[in-house]
């Protein structure tokens, strides 16, 4: 009898406690994080790992108690890499979902389409797309996590100069990535000085043979090294043609092909080439005192354990975007949009997977060219050079 009463009493207590808890959760509105990503469509190799990253870390942060004692709520749409869809979704996130911050925009096109709406509404926006135009000139509310192609070009040219290579043959794809990379390489070379682009060739995105262009570059007077700025399967074909032609000059690729898929396509012909890349490709070869090492290793392990697929550089952009957003909200102590924006702009020394972010009113990217690591392909795998 007595036992029964205690049992009942404890049951009541449990129900009451649960009720109280529920009221507490209701009282603290979740922090809304909006996102539009190219989860399907031609740019899905960007959007897919980005969404997976956002989902798993929002989950993880919530399990650990949320931010400012409030849970995070991820509201995401699939823009399929389409700029006009991105614009519509950005508007929906701002107007009807009333999000506190946006982390998204897999492609430069989607980001630039959404940027005017974000600027007008005054919502902090962290983009995950590459091109330099997103943060140069600086837009008040727009930030981004990936390095720009300008930094990749600078990083490669610096490495060439260090090796005493000053006459560069450039070959680039005619797609958006390649042509922007070409312009930035030409600009970076003339800004740096002491290095010269002596040949400038291009190839189409669906070309199946680049031996003609490479033969031309090889025949150029004084050329000491060759750089390929491109994306997709094109650079892999260039790499193979390079090996077939037996060109002995040191060969560089851009960060556009910094993935294991590229190594698979290019095979043994990739041996010896160098490229700028995220440390995510070589977590185990980072020195123990590298501040990024624990962050990179943790992200790689957690992602691969959760999704059973290889981690990608692009997912890391989303990781950095989310973590920057969280730090900014914590620093601001609220989700007041202007306060969060100011906090975001003043973030210093934030160690992410892509690099160490030092934001400022003049720099909404916060990364240095040095955040790219120079890797070399040796025996079919990546090797950290510096």
């Amino acid at each position: 009898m007595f036992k029964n009463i205690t049992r009942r009493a404890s049951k009541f207590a449990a129900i009451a406690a649960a009720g109280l808890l529920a009221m507490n959760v209701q009282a603290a509105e979740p922090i809304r994080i909006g996102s539009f990503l190219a989860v399907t469509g031609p740019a899905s190799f960007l959007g897919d790992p980005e969404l997976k990253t956002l989902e798993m870390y929002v989950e993880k942060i919530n399990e650990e108690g949320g931010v400012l004692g409030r849970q995070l709520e991820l509201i995401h749409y699939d823009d399929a890499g389409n700029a006009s869809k991105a614009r519509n979704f950005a508007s929906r996130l701002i107007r009807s979902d009333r999000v506190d911050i946006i982390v998204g925009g897999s492609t430069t096109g989607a980001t630039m389409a959404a940027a005017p709406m974000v600027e007008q509404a005054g919502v902090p926006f962290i983009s995950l797309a590459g091109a330099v135009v997103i943060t140069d000139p600086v837009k008040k509310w727009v930030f981004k996590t990936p390095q720009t192609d300008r930094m990749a070009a600078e990083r490669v040219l610096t490495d060439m100069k260090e090796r005493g290579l000053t006459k560069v043959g450039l070959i680039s794809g005619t797609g958006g990535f390649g042509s922007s990379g070409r312009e930035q390489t030409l600009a970076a070379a003339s800004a740096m000085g002491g290095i010269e682009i002596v040949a400038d060739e291009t190839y189409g995105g669906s070309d199946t043979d680049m031996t003609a262009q490479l033969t031309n570059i090889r025949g150029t007077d004084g050329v000491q090294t060759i750089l390929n700025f491109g994306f997709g399967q094109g650079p892999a074909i260039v790499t193979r043609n390079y090996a077939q032609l037996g060109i002995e000059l040191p060969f560089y690729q851009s960060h556009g092909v910094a993935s294991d898929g590229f190594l698979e396509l290019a095979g043994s012909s990739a041996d010896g080439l160098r490229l700028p890349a995220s440390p995510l490709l070589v977590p185990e070869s980072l020195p123990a005192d590298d501040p990024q090492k624990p962050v990179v290793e943790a992200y790689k392990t957690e992602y691969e354990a959760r999704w059973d697929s290889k981690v990608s550089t692009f997912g890391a952009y989303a990781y950095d975007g989310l973590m920057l957003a969280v730090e900014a909200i914590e620093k601001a102590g609220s989700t007041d949009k202007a306060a969060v924006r100011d906090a975001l702009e003043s973030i210093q020394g934030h160690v992410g997977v892509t690099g160490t972010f030092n934001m400022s009113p003049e720099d909404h990217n916060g990364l240095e060219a040095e955040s790219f690591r120079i890797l070399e392909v040796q025996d079919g795998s990546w090797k950290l050079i510096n």
Partner: protein
Amino acid sequence: MFSEFLQYLFTGITIGATYALIALGFTLIYNASHVINFAQGEFLMIGGMATVSLTAMGVPMLLAIVLAVVLAGVLGVALQRLAIAPAKNADVVTLIIITIGASIFIRGLAQLVWGKEYHVMPNFSSDEPIQIFGAVLNSQSLWVLGVGAVLVAVLVYFFTRTLTGKAILATSMNKDAARLVGIRTQVVLMLAFMVSALLGSVAGIVVAPITFTSYDIGIILGLKGFVAAAIGGLGSGMGAVVGGLALGVVEAMAAGYLSSDYKDAVAFSMILVVLFFMPRGLFGAKVVERV
């Protein structure tokens, strides 16, 4: 200087041979039905992708190639039975539009089954390129040229010496008359689609080690193949081969001596120039329309 020229020539001939094989597939179906089969590029893709995925599953290379070719052949028949045949009274333009629809469908299916990544196929023989007068030739290029030559010879024989081949030609010239002399035109059409699919898939397999392969490789290669067929004169087997080789060599020379930016522009202006002076292409039949 000479070695550069030779290098451009080798590059051009290799790409050109690929275009020629695709153009032959266009020619075959055009001959049988006056339909330009825009799903031709997809046969190419099926050949390459099926071979790659079968070898990845552990099937020996040679068997994988045979199975891939058979798969493409079945697909060719299915395309004719399920998409073209039901619309038999439709005019040619409608049929062409149906093939475009079919190609989008096949591509979508391939994307679902095989994913969107590019895949590698190993060279048939050695990976070592061959050196000739300072220029290099990929050993796979010889395979492309050799297989292409054999296929052309077989096709010529098929159309000029066999009853079935002649039946296809007869059907293309006058469907009603062919039926009157006892040719089962529906079967002939099915046959044309099958042979064309076989041809396309073989082309897709021999070029895959050079170009890589993916679900969308058929779009641009198919288009270039069509350009080659049009330059050569639609319906002419010889024209398809010459058109393909000419297109490839012009592209490579333009990339080498002019500028790689204008490579495609030069190739596509070629079709304008040729068709302007020879509206039926280089080897097109001199057909007079009776009014």
